[in-house]
């Protein structure tokens, strides 16, 4: 069946327009148009760096007779993608009342493997076992997407070698360390024919012959022969390719990115309106747009956005719970975009 997004767009023709060309459990390729480049780029930046996820942050090593140094293994553990479903109800440990870490602000995982056979042993992410109380049954579980169900290789052991350690996974954002990035990559491009000359392509003799056209080149009108440069032209169509590293489904990365950005902006509104005293909204317990805030005191709840401020502006994120099964990720349109049978969990 052919699907033409233009049919339904008339109602909100004045705002951003979305067209999705591919969506599955790993990536969403979509076009954002009818908006400013700063709008698109801020969303890209937030999706890259400011969506909270969970990653191993501390490792206590009890026994390591492998050939790898403790800190080398700890670094590898940090980079293992962990399921971030329900991260909204986990506290940042810097905001938690506990001394160090507890079940409200961390997930513990243990790894214990000893090579008892006479072949080298491979230790995989599936051998990391979450222990103790957790916010929910999946938060902090290593992401395993390969068909054998192994997950990333952590290290190898020779006969007789042993590894025994305990990890503490914490909530964080990629601005602090890239291990908290939810996305593997975010493709972002515009103006595939370089009509705006934002790119200065290096070439030997002919840039046309040496630079293969983007897959989006066919989506836009190529420049006419001898066409004069348009000094008033601005980019208007932006092509995103959001690919997940596993912690969150790709469509959730996008809706979470929008949410985080809205929270930043709403935080500014609250403070600015308060400061002026001109009939401002009194942010009850809302503490600024920093990445510690909204879920703080906003009560738990999977549908995140609503906290202290559903605000008069925007009614925001009507469909933010989305996709992800969870407590019934049914959208207003009835279906859960990704069936429960996806390769997740």
């Amino acid at each position: 069946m052919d699907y033409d997004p233009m049919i339904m767009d008339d109602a909100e023709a004045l705002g951003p327009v979305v067209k999705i060309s591919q969506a599955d459990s790993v990536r969403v390729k979509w076009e954002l148009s009818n908006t400013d480049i700063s709008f698109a780029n801020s969303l890209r930046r937030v999706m890259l760096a400011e969506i909270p996820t969970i990653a191993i942050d501390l490792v206590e090593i009890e026994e390591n007779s492998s050939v790898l140094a403790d800190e080398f293994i700890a670094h590898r553990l940090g980079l293992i993608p962990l399921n971030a479903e329900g991260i909204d109800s986990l506290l940042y440990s810097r905001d938690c009342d506990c001394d160090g870490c507890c079940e409200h602000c961390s997930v513990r995982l243990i790894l214990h493997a000893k090579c008892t056979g006479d072949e080298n042993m491979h230790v995989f992410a599936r051998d990391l076992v979450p222990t103790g109380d957790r916010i929910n049954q999946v938060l902090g579980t290593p992401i395993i997407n390969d068909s054998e169900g192994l997950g990333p290789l952590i290290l190898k052991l020779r006969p007789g070698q042993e590894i025994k350690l305990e990890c503490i996974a914490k909530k964080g954002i990629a601005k602090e360390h890239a291990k908290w990035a939810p996305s593997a990559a975010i493709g972002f491009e515009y103006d595939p024919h370089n009509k705006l000359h934002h790119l200065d392509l290096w070439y030997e003799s002919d840039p046309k012959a040496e630079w293969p056209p983007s897959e989006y080149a066919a989506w836009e009108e190529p420049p006419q022969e001898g066409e004069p440069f348009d000094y008033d032209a601005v980019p208007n169509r932006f092509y995103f390719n959001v690919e997940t590293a596993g912690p969150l489904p790709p469509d959730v990365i996008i809706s979470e990115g929008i949410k985080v950005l809205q929270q930043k902006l709403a935080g500014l509104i609250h403070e600015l309106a308060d400061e002026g005293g001109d009939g401002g909204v009194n942010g009850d317990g809302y503490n600024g747009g920093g990445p510690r805030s909204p879920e703080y005191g906003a009560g738990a709840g999977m549908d995140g956005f609503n906290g202290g401020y559903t605000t008069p502006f925007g009614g925001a994120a009507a469909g933010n719970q989305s996709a992800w099964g969870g407590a019934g990720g049914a959208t207003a349109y009835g279906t859960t975009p990704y069936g429960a049978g996806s390769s997740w969990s």
Partner: protein
Amino acid sequence: MAAANYKHDNTVERSFELFVLQEGEKKITEKVVSGMSNCSDFLLLKEDHTLGNLLSAYLRMAPHVMFAAYKIGHPNVPEVLIRVQTDGSITPREAFLTTLKQLVALYGQLGREFQKELALRKYADQSENAAADAAGPSGTSGQNGI
């Protein structure tokens, strides 16, 4: 063997000072620029180009705003300064607030548009799969009945 005692590791404290407000810091403060009419500087702490570029770009498009720009004085200092000058019919703070509200609404609209298109995409994909199944030799009809 080596064991990290996180309770005494104060290097951990420093790693989020780039984006978490310290005690007593305000996210945003307005400072009226003396010597220029209808002009204010807004200082945003623990923010970066994400908000600086977005807000100054949309302020420039806003009515009654004559000038808007941002700077990040030093790449290692997480502070954004946004200067706004209006034509006098509204204050820079009013222009700033209006722009903020407009952007929250626009991103809300984007979120709704995205969910709508995603549902359509899924529906189209499912229909395609169903059609492919039905066409195939062992097609089981009506499996994805929607």
